[in-house]
């Protein structure tokens, strides 16, 4: 979506303003938002650069609208650290790592606004293994999941012969599973 003011840049900020009791919704790019709204985009921040205040000002602008009343009942609270979403809006700082899960879609929305993205593509900690469903404890992983993990580790260690062997094993297992599904489905067909 293009910015409502300049019609050139991509709109990244959704801004709701109440003017004379009338709700006015605008979709703005960062540059226009800085000029035409009350957000302070380029905060004179002393010392270490932080966008925390900017974030909270954007989100506050967003929620200081009529929607706020509706949101209040749905103001999520992080079970782990007790921080509420509204509290987070005031400071721009989260209470713990679990807040990212606890605030769910609200956090996702703000990441899109601030970062223009919601998916990490950079570094992973050494030895970190990506699995389809990360939260699964190892015991619950399927045979194929476990093999996939070993495959990734083998690739990371550049043990390509082992990797090729694991790849073939996974293929064979997958083929078997699919066959199993077909067989199960067969009597009903």
């Amino acid at each position, binding site marked *: 979506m293009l910015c409502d003011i300049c019609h050139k840049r991509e709109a990244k900020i959704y801004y709701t303003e109440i003017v004379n009791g009338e709700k006015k919704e605008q979709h703005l790019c960062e540059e226009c938002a800085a000029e035409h709204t009350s957000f302070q985009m*380029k905060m004179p921040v002393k010392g270490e650069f932080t966008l925390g205040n900017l974030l909270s000002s954007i989100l506050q602008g967003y929620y200081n609208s009529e929607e706020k009343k509706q949101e209040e009942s749905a103001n999520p609270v992080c079970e782990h650290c007790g921080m509420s979403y509204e509290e987070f809006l005031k400071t721009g*700082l*989260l209470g713990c790592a679990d807040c990212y899960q606890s605030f769910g879609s609200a956090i996702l929305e703000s990441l899109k606004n601030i*970062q223009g993205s*919601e998916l990490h593509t950079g570094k992973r900690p*050494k030895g970190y293994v990506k699995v389809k469903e990360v939260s699964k404890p190892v015991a619950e992983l399927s045979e194929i999941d476990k093999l996939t993990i070993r495959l990734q580790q083998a690739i990371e260690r550049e043990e390509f012969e082992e990797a090729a062997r694991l790849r073939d094993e996974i293929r064979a297992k997958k083929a078997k599973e699919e066959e199993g599904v077909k067989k199960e489905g067969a009597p009903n067909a």
Partner: protein
Amino acid sequence: MRKWYEETAENGDVVISSRVRLARNLRSYRFGSRLSDEDAVRLVKEVQDAAPLVKEKDGKRYFLCNVNHLSEVNRQAMVERYVVSPTLAGKKQETGLILSEDESVSIMINEEDHIRIQSVTAGMDLEKVFAEANFIDDILSEQLSFSFDDRFGYLTACPTNVGTGLRASYMLFLPALTMTGRVEKLSEEMGKYGVTIRGLYGEGTKSQGCLYQVSNQKTLGRTEKEIIANLDCIVDQVIKQERRRREYMLQAGYDEIEDKIFRSYGILKYARQIGVEDAMTLLAQLKFGADAGVVKLKEDVNLHILMMNIQPAGLQKLLGKNVGSSVRDRARAEYIRNKLPDIERGQNS
């Protein structure tokens, strides 16, 4: 042992230094805003316990300290030397530091995030400082378990740092763009590419001594390499613009500029009291003159270090005692008089 800022480097006429900072948090503690005092003490200790491993693998000498136990002046002086952030220096809770002897690597503990790994070098070399910080990150992760999420990357207290946790920045010296009032416009243009510029000692885009910090705004959705490449690309443009402006200024009004620089030198050399802002402006003009060959310093003096040392707390530390601002202004003038080398007309005249 020479400090990193005492080295001379490539593109030094515009790029003073390169710095990266990686934000990391430990799984087993809440973020700063929800961290109890006892947990802060435990956190600092747990991270400092990894220092021997860092020493062993990195081969540098490292010092440990608990920043909140230091005096106000010492903390402030560390901020002025960019060893710690103002956030860390201002915290009442337990805060820790693991600092390399040359001050190029500092690991801040219990800053906004549990860990901030910072690496700095003189001149333009983000690749080198990123490699260093990345290496330290790998070492620390052998002993500490970091909060990491498959989708959001490294989890940070503020969502503006989430993902890579990487803030890469250059410190730039932009006298010509400042004197011609181009920095505001530049700031707008850079914003479009997710790059921010702000004055180093001043507020917003105003700066003292024409020194600026330029850094990436976004940390999520692009790789560390992409972030650095993007910043390099923008800064290359800024360097070109600054140099073009300098050349133009020198061609258009060499005699005026030469006169201005010698006058600035005159004040610096003979003033009996001088405020930090005045001193920074005049030193910036002198540095510009020296870089551009309008004047020649008869001794090799690093003017950027001089700029760093005349900041209030740095000066206080050199004086070894707490003094009021008028005493400081006299001390500053004296310090500059003593440090300033003789000059002569440069090879360009």
